[in-house]
């Protein structure tokens, strides 16, 4: 985003613009050494007891909190898992890369507050998601750096949100000077005039910005100029889109996100997979939601591997909160503030589980230095995790910490 200030500082004139346009375009892309931050949100509040903090019953299961016996718990690498095929498939393939944090105290039973805390590290309104923070701090981030398909995608005004719910229109919009045709000779505005038009547009906006006296108006104009001076992101994206798209929305979104990352127009994406708010028929519905989620996660990583991007994906998986260690009268489970979180990616030492809970999903306290159980330890909260993630992603600047402070210090979670 430095180019904004660069242009503004120069007081760009029409004469200077052609060169500047080329310069900015050459740099307004996510570079090849950047990471794609993927936040995958299990919408509604997942149940860690059915997941990576499994609690199988013993005996006849009269006081069970899951539908599987403790003998059915599956060990994959360092992990104990509930017996769910998609979950096991994902963990089997990535057991060495995955870091699981169990017993996370999300501090809320409210969907809205829980989701905020999970993805921003704060229960309060108005804090940016970790994905938005990461995108805003990507070097030379284009205006499409943060792509959202749902989930907590608050940007706190740091950068725009890009929505591409369907791949169908990308090729249409890739060539805005044409009418739905790949023929380069069919531009409605001849190519010889396009750059003159762009110069005139940018110069006009610069004059408007210079004349505007209301800060909010000037900011809106500057945002438009930023979007306009960027490269034609849709044209960059189009060649990277697959010829065939998957049937499920989550997998389609993953395909678009990976293509956008490969094209250099996106460095962070917010994904969501629903069905977890199982207040009724938990044992029937929850495994289905988990299957969809982890089939999606597996698809993401497998596709990334095929595209040679797997070692540049930072995947974070979390949910609103957890679910009660008991069933309600409708065979469902209600909200519970203790949850789990998963992550994998560059710089994360995988194959480990941090944290634990007892049979009632009460977290064991951890020594903040060793992360081993300790009676006078702490509970890990989203604030600790986000402080660690901010540090890991290099977005823990004084400005960020001052504007959106966290009530928890970074822990040595990553290695």
């Amino acid at each position: 985003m430095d180019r904004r200030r660069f242009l503004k500082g120069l007081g760009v004139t029409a004469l200077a613009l052609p060169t500047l346009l080329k310069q900015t375009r050459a740099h307004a892309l996510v570079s090849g050494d950047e990471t794609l931050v993927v936040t995958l949100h299990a919408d509604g509040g997942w149940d860690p007891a059915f997941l990576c903090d499994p609690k199988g019953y013993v005996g006849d299961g009269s006081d069970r909190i899951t539908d599987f016996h403790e003998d059915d718990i599956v060990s994959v690498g360092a992990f104990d898992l509930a017996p769910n095929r998609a979950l096991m498939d994902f963990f089997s393939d990535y057991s060495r890369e995955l870091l699981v944090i169990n017993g996370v105290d999300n501090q809320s039973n409210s969907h809205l507050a829980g989701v905020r805390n999970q993805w921003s590290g704060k229960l309060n309104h108005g804090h940016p998601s970790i994905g938005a923070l990461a995108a805003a701090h990507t070097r030379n981030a284009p205006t499409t750096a943060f792509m959202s398909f749902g989930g907590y995608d608050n940007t706190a005004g740091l950068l725009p949100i890009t929505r591409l719910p369907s791949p169908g229109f990308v090729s249409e919009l890739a060539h805005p000077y044409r009418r739905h045709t790949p023929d380069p000779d069919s531009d409605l505005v001849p190519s010889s005039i396009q750059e003159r038009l762009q110069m005139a547009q940018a110069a006009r906006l610069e004059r408007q910005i210079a004349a505007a006296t209301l800060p909010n108006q000037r900011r809106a104009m500057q945002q438009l100029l930023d979007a306009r001076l960027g490269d034609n992101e849709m044209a960059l994206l189009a060649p990277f889109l697959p010829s065939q798209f998957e049937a499920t929305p989550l997998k389609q979104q993953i395909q678009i996100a990976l293509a956008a990352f490969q094209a250099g127009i996106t460095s962070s994406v917010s994904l969501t997979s629903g069905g977890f708010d199982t207040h009724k028929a938990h044992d029937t519905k929850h495994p289905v939601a988990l299957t969809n989620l982890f089939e999606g996660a597996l698809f993401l990583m497998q596709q990334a591997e095929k595209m040679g991007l797997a070692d540049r994906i930072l995947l974070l998986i979390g949910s609103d909160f957890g679910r009660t260690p008991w069933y309600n009268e409708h065979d469902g489970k209600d909200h519970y503030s203790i949850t789990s979180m998963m992550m994998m990616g560059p710089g994360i030492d995988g194959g480990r589980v941090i944290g634990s809970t007892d049979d009632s999903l009460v977290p064991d306290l951890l020594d903040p230095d060793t992360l081993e159980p300790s009676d006078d330890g702490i509970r890990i909260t989203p604030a600790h995790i986000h402080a660690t993630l901010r540090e890991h992603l290099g977005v823990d600047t004084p400005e960020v910490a001052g504007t959106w402070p966290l009530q928890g210090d970074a822990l040595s979670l990553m290695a």
Partner: protein
Amino acid sequence: MRSWLLAISVLMGCTPGPHNGDLAQNPDKGSCVDPMDYLQDRLWPELVGTTCLACHNQEGSARHSQFVLQPTSVPGAMEANLQILSTLAQKEQDGSSWLLLKPTNTVPHGGGQMVAPGSAEAELLQEFITLANRPDLCQGEGEDEATDSGLGLTLASPVSTLRKASLVLAGRLPTSMEESRVRAGGEDVLIQVLWEMMSGEAFADRMVLLLNDVFLTDRYLENNLGVFIVDQGRYPSAFWYEQTDPSDKWTYQTLTAEAIAREPLMLAQHILREDRPWSEILTADYMLANTWLKLAYGVHDGPIPAPDDPAAQVWEEIDLPDYPHAGVLTTVAFLNRYPNTDTNRNRHRSWYFYKTFLDTDIMTFADRPVDSTDTPFDNPTLNDPNCNVCHTTMDPVAGLFQNWNTLGAYRPDAAWYDDMLVPGFGGVDLPDAAQDEALPWLAARTVEDPRFDVASVKMVMKLLTGQEPLSQATVTDDPVMQKALAEQDAWIADIAAEFRERNHDLKWVIEQVVLSHWFRAIADDGASEATLERTGAAIMLSPEMLHDKISATLGMPWVNEASRQGYLTEFYGLMYGGIDSNTITERLSEPSGVTESIALSMATDMACRAVPIDLHKSTDDRVLFPYATMADAPILRDGTRDEQTEAAIRRNLQWLFLRLLGEDLPVDDPEIDAAYALLEDAWTTGRLAVNSGDATSILPGPCQLREDWWTGEPLPDDQMVIRDDDFAIRAWMTVVTYLLTDYRFLYE
């Protein structure tokens, strides 16, 4: 067709056109004809009063239509008639005004063809349509100047405010009459015109669109979901259309789904249209229904109308038997949109109710940490202070929804949970006598609560400015932000208090917001930092509003040529920041590379379509090029310039800035110079390319005019526009693209 206007022009010794930006020195209102004069002198006595009025009166056979006239014996009749005629004149379909399409029976007219196309009567109507659509023709007398807000802010002039308000509130440009009156009468007349605008159908339709951002019930328009959210146990006729002829069945299903989905918004529209107190949004003891909804609810008497029967589309107040109505709260769509579960126990409904109607987001109380693992209480929501901080407020109102199940069906005698706080509101328990009418009981108390007034004012602010008002939960401790919040809340408190005194007149709140600095500040003139913090935020137009603005300014919409579906409303809406009323409920306010691609695609496409079509028309019918012609080259083929030609081009550019951007510039303004330079540059470059063979002299295929764009009828050879030997059309297309991507076009 233009004879009458021309005759006036000749008599006055001047030519039609927009003023040159300096009215005081060089008034140029040559063809200014007061539309009222025209109506009284020509249109009424020769056609409307003698022909249309027979059916289009309050008792006539067309009394249910949108076009109901007043006889001249009624005080103020001609003003009302002028307003409705002007509105119809501006309403277009397939590029033609409804004022002409209807009586010529080009679109189905209940009375059949009353005016023959091309007849003298059609000319009369066309003259009026021209007057209504050309604000430049009647600039009127008076100064139109920016004003001081008293807060160190400069406010947009009355005419500029009118343009913005007209686009936001009615999705159209002001009529010439409206603009002329406001220019002459200033602020007071602006208010009059705003109220006239708010009595029109365009405003009523726009409010449906805007208020969906609040209720989000349009979610059920998609895939006819509306018919599937009705409790068949309560409403066994919900699928009434299944018994109809297969050829009509799906049409009936769609009509029924739309009616069920739109019931809450039609109630809101009805309240505004009938000038009822906005409090009826909660307290209405009736429901709004059209025939399709009555059929679904089993309360329709009589035969099933044909799908295209306009009478069946008329919404009216009805009272469902044994059903305690409480405005929007007891509509099926609303109750489904904010559903209940056995464990949620109506708390979601309670949260929404407080947030929307009482300016209280209970979830901001939930910002404090809660520990599920360490509560010593059996019933935490009732007894644990960490939990009941929310639930003490939330649960009693949740209990008041006890009579309505998840699908919105009424269940009298429903028992409420005895492990929750008892139903009630404001510290008062629901009386036994009101157990079966809990929501009407709640509604009556809510509208007496001052927070209802504040919530209503904030709702209007957000809908008109696109900006969420500040709240304590969303501002930081920064003293500037705190002062901004205090300033905002003081303004809201004043408006809210008077809103109550005015019997909850929401239109008055709309007027106040439009007149305020929140809506019309254009410059800082020494305002405080806190004032500036929340002022002048120009918001990217929503896809729906941009769609309307394109139609209003270019005279044609941006639609897929084959399906005629709007690109911004049907295809690119979500990518351009729109909502789906389901999972995506917040509009984007910042542009990105994606929105910019859509904007550029729109501008290129619309310039390609509109420029040849407009240049093809006779001069007096053009909306974009009333002064320039294809022959007007900025540089002649011999390299020389012609002063008269340059003047005409500049005048047309001046007109385009006014028409498309609302900027009233002198012809020698630097912005006109810049646009002229772009035109000249494009022209010179393009002409050289054509001469050298690098470019063709044929227009790109999509821009060629071979058939009537609206009807698809092939044009005669001599009316086709295919060649562009001199690159004139493409040069103008470049300039129109430039203007359609302008900040002033994409934002309001």
